[in-house]
């Protein structure tokens, strides 16, 4: 190796070590903030444009299944209307019962709405960046939801003004969950299987049916009970395995997220 190259390699390694030390000491924060100030708005625009483009080309995915899905949708709507009436009646009944019992509604969690401003640079991960950070009270492990309580992921990294969400379909994601079946079967929902999810460690003697809903079990820190994760698409119960597992469809499209909410304490 030429002498000059050797020197350069040593300098580079030294600079790397110093950069990492300076980062943890906060000395390079002004450089990082400057870069963030320029790059984040552009990244947000890129993410939004990507969402628009993907949305515009979605019709290309139409295939022969569309008709079947449409018919299912009509059936679902009919059932939904019946269920809606029943729910309304139950709601009224519930309100009356609460009045009788002098029930005090307690909620431990607060919703912090925020916008998705970008995606993680690593293509092997499914992480999104949001425009709120530790300054807003966000902590690692807090759940992130959309709509009325559909879980999309957990906070995995925080900065002052930004944070990263590890989506439920990321290969490192694990969520303690339960199936809304007769046994209230417990298990762990894992990502890393493309757009679908897998619920593992379901006891083999418990009956799991297709289309049953999966919710969070509340058995882990910061995660409340009852956030919707998805529905069962396939059940795999093999004789030589100690547990059965289920392939799930997520309750929402995880590739087109724009507004989300963090559940903070």
């Amino acid at each position, binding site marked *: 190796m030429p002498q000059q*190259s050797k020197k*350069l390699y040593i300098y580079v390694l030294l*600079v790397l070590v110093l*950069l990492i030390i300076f980062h943890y000491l906060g000395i390079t924060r002004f450089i990082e903030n400057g870069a*963030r100030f320029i*790059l984040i708005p552009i990244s947000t625009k890129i993410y939004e444009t990507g969402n628009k483009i*993907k949305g515009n080309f979605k019709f290309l995915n139409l295939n022969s299944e569309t008709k079947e899905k449409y018919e299912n949708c009509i059936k679902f709507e009919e059932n939904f209307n019946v269920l809606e009436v029943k729910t309304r009646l139950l709601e009224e009944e519930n309100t009356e019962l609460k009045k009788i019992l002098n029930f005090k509604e307690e909620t431990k969690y607060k919703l912090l709405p925020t916008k998705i401003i970008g995606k993680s640079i690593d*293509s092997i991960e499914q992480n999104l*960046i949001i425009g709120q950070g530790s300054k807003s009270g966000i902590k690692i492990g807090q759940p992130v939801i959309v709509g009325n309580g559909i879980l999309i992921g957990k906070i995995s990294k925080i900065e002052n003004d930004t944070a990263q969400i590890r989506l439920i379909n990321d290969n490192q994601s694990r969520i303690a969950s339960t199936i809304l079946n007769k046994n209230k079967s417990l298990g762990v929902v894992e990502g890393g299987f493309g757009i679908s999810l897998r619920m593992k460690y379901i006891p083999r003697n418990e009956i799991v049916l297709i289309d049953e809903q999966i919710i969070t079990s509340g058995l882990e820190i910061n995660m409340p009970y009852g956030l919707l994760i998805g529905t069962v698409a396939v059940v795999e119960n093999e004789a030589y395995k100690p547990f059965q597992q289920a392939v799930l469809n997520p309750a929402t499209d995880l590739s087109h997220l724009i507004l989300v909410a963090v559940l903070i304490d």
Partner: protein
Amino acid sequence: MSLIKKIIKFLLLAFSITLLHILAVSLFPYPLNHINIAVSLLLLIFIITNREDSIWLAILVGIFLEIFASITYGINLISLVTSLLLTNWLSLNIFTHRSIYMVFITGIIGTFIYRLIFLVLIFFNTVLNQTEFYIFKGIIIFSMGVEIMLTGFTLFIFYIISTRLLSYLRSDYLSKTGVLKI
């Protein structure tokens, strides 16, 4: 003055490479979003300029990419810079045959080293920081394989385009009057 010019040039290049990488990850459909644009462009600069001081550009790109990284600070930066240094050393001392196909091989080796160092550092980070254990699933290895192949191919395409473009822009083809010499 030339140093300031060089710094500005490096900063602009680093910003452009970072943005192109973000663009590829956010906009391209699967499997094209697995192309590691940062690694392929930095390797291309190494190959075309043949100058080792391009490594400072890699450090700048690494710092910018850390803003969007979901893992512990430094893992991406170290993986990127070390893999480029190692690939450069390999192409100067081991893979000395200069054919167009070697560019493809260099891309594959560069991305492979990048991912290897990345995984080793993640493992040490898990052990030292006692963080949640990184699960090595088959899908991760498959994604990395796709990334390695596509990045090698992208570097190959970039190399062909840039060498053609550079040969078009060479001033040797112009006479003093500005008329093309054929």
